[in-house]
């Protein structure tokens, strides 16, 4: 250890270069994990709070229903089944159906979600997204529509829109409802198509006084996709209680595009990690190899004085390990500190309206936040240390194979 420290001090320039080679990949990875965690969390929260919940209970879809979901007329018994399960944070009944929203000659295909306002309000972020008027109130007949739909139909708060719903099980239903609120959607398509009305209003549209299409459920202590095991534990219990005609669909089934985007992020991060670690390893290998070459005579002398080859290997690896640990710790600390600074300033706003709009389309805010996971910080740093030590193996092996006499005659 002493010899390793002494040598690191002896060639400070090379030591700093090696330190940077280890530090920079770790810092980059920690920083990028921070971004990707935030992106994944954004998508998960947007999907599960606004639309899917952590899971839904529905009747199994049948052929010929188009985009309509089978009607559920026994939601009370489903709620009773749910009450037997531990770990449920929240649940509500909802009636979703495709419809046409129309005002004069303007019309747009929409998706009406009939909700119980007092139940959905604490969970759904649509209430917080309302920018004009108010969210639905208990017993109120009205609709909350997105800004995009309001523009398309040229309506404002207080105007009436006509909804025409066609459910295969109940036929056509039409009614007029006043717009009570307009929300700013995190996803443009949602703002154009998703309308919130009360469950009572949606049931009038579906012409069925007890209809629902799903029971929406959230599970305790779920903070992101990493807690998917908790959701699976609850749904596994539930499947045993429900009749065969009912199915449990989790957020991945209900929002496959969101889980698809999340699925893309993981391999992207792996590719980045491989590139960063690969470059870091090359620099470590190069500098240590040069260092071994420079110390050929010294190493030859050490071997000739009786040091075993394994001791030489250990010396070089200790040197590499020491520098890797210091570099990784500094890299991780810088990454965490930068993430903290970014968050302290409220995130990084995305430049340009196009990029911001694209982020909206995929369900993300147009501001990049950082969300550090300590396990990822530790894994990134530990992985870099491992890679650096591995890269040092070749120079160490070469050093151990030096012939003492030839090594001592070696001239640079």
């Amino acid at each position, binding site marked *: 250890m002493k010899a390793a420290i002494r040598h690191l001090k002896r060639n400070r320039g090379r030591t700093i270069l090696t330190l940077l080679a280890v530090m920079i990949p770790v810092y980059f990875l920690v920083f990028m994990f921070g971004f990707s965690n935030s992106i994944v969390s954004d998508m998960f929260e947007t999907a599960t709070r606004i639309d899917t919940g952590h899971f839904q209970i529905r009747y199994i879809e*049948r*052929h*010929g*229903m*188009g985009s*309509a979901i089978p009607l559920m007329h026994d939601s009370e018994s489903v709620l009773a089944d749910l009450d037997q399960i531990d770990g449920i944070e929240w649940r509500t009944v909802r009636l979703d159906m495709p419809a*046409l929203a*129309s005002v*004069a*000659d303007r*019309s747009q*295909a929409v998706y009406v979600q009939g909700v119980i306002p007092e139940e959905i309000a604490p969970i759904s972020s649509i209430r917080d997204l309302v920018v004009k008027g108010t969210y639905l109130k208990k017993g109120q007949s009205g609709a909350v529509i997105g800004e995009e739909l309001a523009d398309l139909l040229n309506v404002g708060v207080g105007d009436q829109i*006509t909804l*025409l719903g*066609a*459910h*295969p*099980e*109940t*036929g*056509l239903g*039409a*009614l*007029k409802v006043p717009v009570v609120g307009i929300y700013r959607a995190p996803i443009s398509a949602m703002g154009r198509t998703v309308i919130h009305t009360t469950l009572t209003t949606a049931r009038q549209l579906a*012409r069925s006084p007890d209809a629902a299409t799903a029971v929406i459920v959230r599970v305790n202590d779920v903070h992101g996709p990493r807690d998917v095991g908790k959701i699976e534990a609850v749904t596994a219990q539930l499947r045993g209680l429900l009749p065969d005609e009912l199915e449990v669909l989790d957020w991945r089934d209900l929002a496959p595009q969101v889980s698809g985007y999340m699925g893309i992020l993981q391999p992207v991060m792996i590719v980045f990690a491989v590139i960063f670690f690969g470059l870091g390893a090359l620099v470590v290998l190069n500098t240590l190899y040069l260092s071994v070459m420079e110390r050929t005579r010294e190493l030859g002398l050490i071997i000739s004085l009786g040091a075993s080859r394994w001791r030489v290997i250990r010396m070089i690896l200790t040197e590499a390990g020491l520098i890797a640990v210091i570099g990784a710790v500094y890299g991780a600390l810088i990454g965490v500190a930068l993430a903290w600074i970014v968050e302290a300033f409220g995130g990084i706003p995305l430049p340009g309206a196009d990029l911001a709009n694209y982020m909206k389309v995929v369900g993300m805010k147009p501001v990049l936040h950082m969300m550090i996971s300590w396990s990822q910080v530790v894994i990134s740093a530990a992985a870099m240390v491992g890679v650096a030590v591995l890269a040092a193996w070749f120079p160490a092996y070469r050093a151990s194979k030096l012939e003492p006499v030839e090594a001592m005659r070696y001239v640079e």
Partner: protein
Amino acid sequence: MNRIIAWITLLAIVLIGISAIAQEDSLDAEAILNRVNSIWQGDSFHGIIGLDISLSGQTKSYKLEVWTLGERQALIRVLEPEIDLNSGYLQMGDDLWYYSPAVGSIKLPSVALGDALFGAGPSLDDLSRGTLSDDYDATAESAETGYFLTLIPHSDAPVVYGRLEIWVSADYVIEKLIYYDQRGDVLQMADFSDIIEVDERKFATTIVIEDAYGDKTIERIEEPQFDLELDASFFSLDTFNSWEDH
């Protein structure tokens, strides 16, 4: 020389044979379709249509009064069930409206022409008695009782089917229609039966449409009238309002 004459004779026989077969195959599909359409649609039509729409074991029944003028104008009034009484559809060219006594008329996007009218069952295109549009290339062959036609959609045609096969009787009444998807699998089959004669035209009054999943729509046409005097102004939003007085 004799050998050459023999070869020429043989060649001539083969050519005449091929030409005869080709003539058989190249029955004028378009002319047959026009005759079918003419019988099926007439210049105008009025009738009462009963619909039994079965979906996943549940059946809903409707009774409709239907008027058509040419292929581009249609008016449908719902007579039953009671809850839908006097609601209806109006088609004027590509423009389409739905009417409900409770909310008045609603303009629909033209794509709704192909959507199921009541969430399931036939579309307005089906009921307005449009049959075989300009979207297909048709070929015809002789069949046992009449003609067998194959219709392939043009590459840019806005249709969901990959192919249609139609059996037509010698007097140009459709007997059977099979709809295939793009992969060649059967999507649905329509059987035409209970043929009656109205004003010297033979006409199927029961159509059973069954899809690959067993869901079924039975369409029964009562009191069909063809080529009656219908004023174009009848096909207007005002007609909707007049229904409530009856």
